[in-house]
């Protein structure tokens, strides 16, 4: 599993509530969450000081995205941005992941691929786990998963995520007893 920084703990329940609240405030009822439009257009309308910067591939190197919550800034690699715009699941997930950092992780510069080899900490205190969990909750609402509880490909298509992300999502929801 990807390991990040140790941060204040947040449970899946809290991150789920946050994702549901965001959806409801934006009045998004469809399974497909417009993550590109949110970061690229909508947030800029309400928060002129929010910076969403698409940078050339070699500027971020192996990192797909970097979020600096204290500067209210998200940078994404151009190929990732274009992929997300085209609806590619993995890239859309990266953007939602960065939004997860922006909302939850003030005080540290974070990146999608940074490892931290300090002493181990539990998943719910891990910045990467939290960002991934938030992204998964935001992009794949429980109602959508219930439509196709046994078909990760339909869920992936419906929500604009990768099949891998959909498989993981269904497994988790099943484990929680939330799917039949």
């Amino acid at each position, binding site marked *: 599993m990807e390991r990040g920084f140790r941060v204040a703990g947040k449970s899946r329940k809290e991150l789920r509530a946050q994702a549901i609240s965001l959806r409801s405030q934006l009045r998004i009822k469809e399974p497909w969450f417009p993550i590109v439009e949110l970061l690229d257009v909508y947030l800029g309308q309400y928060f002129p000081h929010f910076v969403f910067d698409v940078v050339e591939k070699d500027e971020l190197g192996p990192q797909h995205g970097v979020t600096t919550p204290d500067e209210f800034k998200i940078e994404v690699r151009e190929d990732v941005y*274009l992929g997300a715009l085209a609806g590619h699941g993995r890239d859309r997930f990266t953007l939602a992941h960065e939004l997860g950092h922006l909302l939850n992780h003030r005080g540290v510069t974070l990146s999608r691929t940074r490892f931290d080899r300090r002493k181990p900490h539990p998943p719910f205190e891990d910045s990467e786990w939290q960002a991934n969990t938030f992204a998964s909750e935001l992009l794949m609402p429980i109602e959508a998963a219930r439509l196709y509880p046994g078909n990760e490909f339909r869920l992936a298509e419906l929500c604009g995520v990768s099949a891998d992300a959909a498989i993981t999502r269904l497994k988790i929801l099943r484990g929680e007893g939330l799917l039949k």
Partner: protein
Amino acid sequence: MPKTLTQFGVEVRKKRVERQETLGDMAVALKVSPSFLSGIEVGRKRAPADLVERIIEHLELDMIEAQRLRRLAEETGSEIRISLAGKGNDAREVAAMFARRFSEGDIDELKDALTEIEQKRGRAGGTGF
């Protein structure tokens, strides 16, 4: 990466989002890469004069707005920049409020609060330039 925004870039972005247009769509229309357009908006890149004209045309600005944008573009060249560093507290304040509001409040309340911050900044403005 410089922590600076230019008034020109801020204005271009403002007009773009008002039109509900993504960086990707506008970049295609201008025949530049999204990263170049993004660079202009956040102050990493400078727009050459002919691109400024294409931007004005694309955004369908009236004469007065076009003139204003040209002036801002020129000022960008003389390194007049808005420093985000000087606005650290405000940026932090907004980020904190943003995180808080999305977990409890509603978006109208957030907009009101934000307007208040913007007005406060407007009054305090001037000194940053």
